[in-house]
């Protein structure tokens, strides 16, 4: 009896003690954030935005992210070596980039609807749950999300053509019928129109004035400037092809009569940035070559860049400098020289007198070499952007001269010709006690040495030890900068017949590059195309520009005898010819197809629009294939 009493006392007190605990089974999780918590906290929303900014895809970039699947994170610097700006000279297991027999129809694939869904979800949730968020902030975040979505649709449309335009989350109702979730592809022009109208709707709500890593009004306008230019040129040049690439529903191809409207929009957006934006062409350094290099890479007081991906956080720094610095001045014991510029790109930089940029290696009658006093002399009087983009023989970087020499040419009197002697290793000395093959090559076969005789300067970090794996580089990636906006304005104005205005924009850029004032008085589309090539080299433009002008299949025609489809190299040699004071000790240059380069670049008509994966087609029968696939 006593025992029962004690037992019931214990049970009773237990019940009483625990019974007062409220919501024992209904507690807030400590490891999961609720929607209410996220969408009312500016810090949480900013963190989410950081994720969305980080996921903006680029075909090339500065890091090593290579996920073209559903996630769609693309930021792969190695892709710089896939076109005609550069080739691969790094680790030989990536030599496939020099041997792309033809670009696959699946190249440049992107179908990152998870990203679009995440943004759509965020847009809806911020409205639904963000109760205590000030209206102003809500508007700004929504505008920022819509900018990112518009930017992503631009990244999709330039690769795939018209894609399904999904602007709200698609929710499955478990009815067994998914037909209402299957959206057909929008017209190509509709996607571009969507980008234009989104920018117009959000540009005044974006805030972030003065920021170059988050979108502000002018970032949105820069997107519009570029997107409208692409749409205009597709409308114009697609219809100038012998047989335009179209689909009956307009998923691919834009009618020619829409071209002028798009060009006008591109011009208006560009003008708004140039005339009323807080930006100016970077002109802080009196040396035009260094100035151009700083315009892209220098962060302090840089009013040229509009939108960048920065790598300030110590764990976010990247290896681009480690992988691509010139061999002779590398600070690590491995790496370097992976992506090296082609002679094709070097020669597209004009001479300052406006003449063609082809380097003069042979006398006009082609009987003898031209003899230069030093390796850099052949590059004298070139467009200063060459210096700012590329390290050529005799140029300096980080205060060190980059020594580039392939070997020596010894005069053989018996044969009445030169014997070409190249070292089997770098930094070798010839029997006359002087340099044979320089510390930065070029070399025909050694990996991680330039194969073309050039190195990249753009995007390489100038600071001490940044090319080591320990320190790494925090150079930013430039999505948009004012230089491009000038070119967009120039091209759009030219296409609209306003050549006078176009000349103003193009000449402003050329003047900064060391040309005189008003260096051009007439303009052709080829000239504008070349300006884009030299100004925007390595900034992820070349492929898309050739695509929208519909000349990629002509330039990269897969023919080994075509000078544009092959990658060329320039090898400097020191001349040994005792007794001939005009030639002995001078330098000569040999142009050749880069020895490690194998297959010509081959872009087929089916590459203008990337093939849509069969899995996507299987899941959604309303999606039609792109032409030629």
């Amino acid at each position, binding site marked *: 009896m006593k025992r029962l009493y004690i037992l019931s006392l214990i049970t009773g007190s237990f019940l009483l003690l625990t019974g007062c605990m409220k919501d024992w089974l209904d507690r807030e999780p400590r490891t999961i954030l609720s929607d209410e918590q996220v969408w009312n906290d500016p810090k949480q929303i900013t963190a989410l935005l950081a994720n969305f900014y980080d996921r903006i895809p680029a075909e090339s970039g500065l890091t090593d992210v290579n996920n073209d699947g559903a996630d769609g994170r693309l930021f792969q610097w190695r892709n710089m070596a896939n076109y005609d700006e550069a080739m691969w000279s790094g680790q030989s297991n990536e030599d496939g980039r020099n041997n792309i027999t033809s670009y696959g129809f699946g190249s440049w694939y992107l179908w990152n609807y998870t990203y679009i869904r995440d943004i759509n979800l965020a847009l809806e949730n911020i409205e639904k749950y963000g109760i205590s968020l000030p209206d102003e902030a809500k508007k700004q975040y929504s505008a920022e999300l819509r900018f990112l979505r518009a930017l992503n649709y631009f990244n999709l449309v330039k690769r795939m053509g018209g894609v399904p335009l999904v602007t709200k989350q698609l929710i499955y109702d478990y009815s067994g019928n998914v037909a209402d979730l299957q959206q057909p592809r929008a017209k190509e022009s509709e996607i571009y129109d969507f980008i234009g109208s989104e920018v117009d709707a959000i540009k005044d709500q974006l805030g972030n004035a003065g920021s170059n890593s988050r979108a502000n009004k002018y970032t949105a306008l820069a997107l519009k400037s570029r997107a409208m230019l692409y749409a205009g040129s597709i409308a114009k040049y697609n219809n100038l092809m*012998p047989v335009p690439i179209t689909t009956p529903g307009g998923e691919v191809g834009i009618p020619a009569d829409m071209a002028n409207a798009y060009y006008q929009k591109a011009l208006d957006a560009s003008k708004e940035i140039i005339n009323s934006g807080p930006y100016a062409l970077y002109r802080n350094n009196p040396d035009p070559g260094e100035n151009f290099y700083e315009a892209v890479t220098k962060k302090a007081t840089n009013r040229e860049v509009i939108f960048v991906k920065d790598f300030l956080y110590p764990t976010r720094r990247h290896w681009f400098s480690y992988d691509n610095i010139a061999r002779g001045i590398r600070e690590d014991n491995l790496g370097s020289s992976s992506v090296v510029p082609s002679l094709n790109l070097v020669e597209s930089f004009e001479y300052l007198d406006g003449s063609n940029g082809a380097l003069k290696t042979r006398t006009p009658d082609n009987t003898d070499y031209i003899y230069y006093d030093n390796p850099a002399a052949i590059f004298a009087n070139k467009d200063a952007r060459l210096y700012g983009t590329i390290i050529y023989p005799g140029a300096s970087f980080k205060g060190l001269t980059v020594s580039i020499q392939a070997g020596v040419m010894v005069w053989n009197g018996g044969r009445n010709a030169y014997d070409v002697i190249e070292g089997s290793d770098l930094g070798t000395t010839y029997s006359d006690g002087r340099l044979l093959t320089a510390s930065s090559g070029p070399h025909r076969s050694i990996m991680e040495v330039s194969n073309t005789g050039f190195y990249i300067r753009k995007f390489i970090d100038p600071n001490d030890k940044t090319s080591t794996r320990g320190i790494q580089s925090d150079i930013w990636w430039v999505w948009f900068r004012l230089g491009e906006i000038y070119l967009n304005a120039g091209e759009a104005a030219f296409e609209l017949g306003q050549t006078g205005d176009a000349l103003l924009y193009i000449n402003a850029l050329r003047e900064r590059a060391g040309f005189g004032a008003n260096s051009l008085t007439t303009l052709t589309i080829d000239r504008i195309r070349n300006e884009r090539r030299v100004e925007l080299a390595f900034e992820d433009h070349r492929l898309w520009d050739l695509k929208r002008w519909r000349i990629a299949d002509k330039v990269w025609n897969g*023919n*080994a005898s075509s000078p544009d489809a092959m990658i060329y190299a320039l090898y400097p040699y020191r001349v040994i010819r005792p007794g001939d004071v005009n030639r002995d000790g001078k330098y000569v240059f040999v142009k050749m197809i880069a020895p490690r380069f194998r297959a010509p670049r081959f872009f087929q008509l089916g590459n203008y629009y990337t093939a849509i994966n*069969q899995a996507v087609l299987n899941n959604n029968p309303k999606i039609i294939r792109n032409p*030629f696939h």
Partner: protein
Amino acid sequence: MNKILSSAFIAMLLCMLVTGCKKDNFEKPSSTLSGTVVYNKEAVGVRSNGVQLELWQRGFQLFTKIPVHVGQDGSFSASLFDGNYKLVRLPGNGPWINNTDSIDITVNGNTVVEVPVQPYFIIKNATAAKAGTGVTATFSIERVNASQPLESASLYLAKTNIVDAVNNLGSTTLSADAIGDITGPVTINVTIPAALTGQSFFYVRIGVKTAGVAERIYTQPIKIE
């Protein structure tokens, strides 16, 4: 102790060796589908590694195409399981008119099919011969379908019998304007490039390009000695 361990080890090893030889549980495909792309019963010459046909088979969970590459002489072959397939002439892929009608194929053992296509142009009476330091080719172009204009005709030279617009050591291209009237015979000259001057023989091929069509139609390679 040692003895026990080693005998256990040997037993394990034996066990692995015995089970390791177990055959794969999938049979490999044993039938072959082969054939030629033809126009008027004649094989159509194309670029090596350029043209593709597609095979599709319904009724299985994995629904994806089986690409079948067409050799430069117009022939193709694929190892398949017996069954019913649909063969698709991929639009915009070969030098012929798009025809999206699929061809039903029943593969049973070794099956041979002809895939009929309608090219825009065909090349007839092609001859080529060495003439001094060059090669001269004469041929006539016959228009089969007038929906697309002629863009150009080219003569390609190569060391091996794989010759086309991508694999060549020298070429000359005559644009449609330069050819003018295509009802008469066309003559193209090409200078033999340095890489071929020392060769005892090499191959040439004539290709004709239709405007707006990526691939050219080719003759069979002609050996030049």
